[in-house]
């Protein structure tokens, strides 16, 4: 009952509808792609805003509250690529490069899915820990490194650049730097400093997300042809893996002291697949891996699945876990 209402409300929320508009219009032949500069501006804005708000929240949080959730995040970030890699090689019979590439994507996270989870909660008045953006930063990098190392160990050829270049690409990539930088600014400037920039970085946030999702819908739609190349088993993986990861994270949530809202967000992070940081790093370090496979899975299947159905589902998971373990 409650799940049904949450699902309906989520499906008619502006971000989900904007994604659908971008997807459908492109499928019908319309040219809706945003200028790359606008895409660029929106992603800088969203990452910095997430970081800033998280930093301000940390500045007023009690120290230490972050410790256990951070360890849980690191555990997920190294565990997910390990089992994904094994499953993809054994069950789906993928080569080392493709299996490693996918493991990197599913172990890392999608900042936009994270934001959608926050909005989902906000629309329902459910509180969540302010420090959650710090988990995004923590989850983004380790999985990519682990997965690339696995693929290399499994025989995938490097791209000439090597693991080090790929590592630099993620650690000093825009998303990590803006998130971490935003967190630092938020901590240092605190609520007083933030008040003056709130009209830009807080009030406009959901509107900017709508524009960004319009663009993601366009990009996903352009790649929808890759689904055939990916094949049914991979599509199944792209739906099942997120659900499994969310369930595990939901169980961890109460154990590391997260609130129901925080647990829902943590589950969504585990379920989400990267489609910005991971593709760039993987392209450099595992050039043999086929971009069609990893982008179709993460962007065409997992992302919309999480956005439309996953959010209410993971919310139900979180509430259930809290009833069981809380």
């Amino acid at each position: 009952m409650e799940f049904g209402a949450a699902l309906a409300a989520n499906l008619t929320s502006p971000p989900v509808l904007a994604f659908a508009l971008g997807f459908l219009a492109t499928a019908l032949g319309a040219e809706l792609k945003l200028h790359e500069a606008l895409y660029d501006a929106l992603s800088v804005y969203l990452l910095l805003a997430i970081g800033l708000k998280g930093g301000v929240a940390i500045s007023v949080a009690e120290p230490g509250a972050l410790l256990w959730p951070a360890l849980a995040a690191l555990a997920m970030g190294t565990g997910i690529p390990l089992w994904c890699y094994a499953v993809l090689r054994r069950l789906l019979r993928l080569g080392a490069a493709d299996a490693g590439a996918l493991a990197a994507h599913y172990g890392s996270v999608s900042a936009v899915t994270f934001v959608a989870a926050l909005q989902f909660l906000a629309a329902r008045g459910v509180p969540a820990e302010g420090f959650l953006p710090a988990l995004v930063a923590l989850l983004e990098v380790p999985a990519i490194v682990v997965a690339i190392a696995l693929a290399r160990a499994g025989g995938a050829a490097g791209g000439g650049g090597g693991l080090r270049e790929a590592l630099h690409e993620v650690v000093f990539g825009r998303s990590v730097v803006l998130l971490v930088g935003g967190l630092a600014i938020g901590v240092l400037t605190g609520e007083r400093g933030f008040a003056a920039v709130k009209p830009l970085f807080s009030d406009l946030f959901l509107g900017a997300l709508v524009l960004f999702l319009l663009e993601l819908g366009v990009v996903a739609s352009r790649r929808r042809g890759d689904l055939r190349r990916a094949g049914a088993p991979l599509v199944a993986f792209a739906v099942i893996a997120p659900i499994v990861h969310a369930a595990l994270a939901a169980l961890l949530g109460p154990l590391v002291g997260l609130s129901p809202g925080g647990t829902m967000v943590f589950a969504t992070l585990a379920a989400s697949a990267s489609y910005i940081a991971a593709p760039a790093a993987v392209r450099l370090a595992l050039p043999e891996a086929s971009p069609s496979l990893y982008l179709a899975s993460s962007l065409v299947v997992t992302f919309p699945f999480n956005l439309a159905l996953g959010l209410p589902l993971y919310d139900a998971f979180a509430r259930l876990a809290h009833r069981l373990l809380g």
Partner: protein
Amino acid sequence: MAIHTVPVQRVTIVAESLLEERLLKDLEAAGARGYTLTAARGAGARGVRSSEWEGGNVRIETLVSDAVAQRLLERLAEAYFPHYAVVAWVETVEVVRGDRYV
């Protein structure tokens, strides 16, 4: 009194933009003294799509001596052609101030 020009090789490389930094290092290593880069899009054997999400292509032109051109092409053939979307071609052009390129 006609202005003096000398023939040099112009190597043009089109590649997915993620490779920009790496390619520029290789250019320098091969002995190129400069380059000009423009943002591009394109399609080829690998299809039009793979580059879109990852930021399009770069088109790099560099004026170099014959020997440098040769070294550069060898490097491309070895390090990029197997796995990456990279295309390259060479022409002879006439430059003013030719001493700057060789």
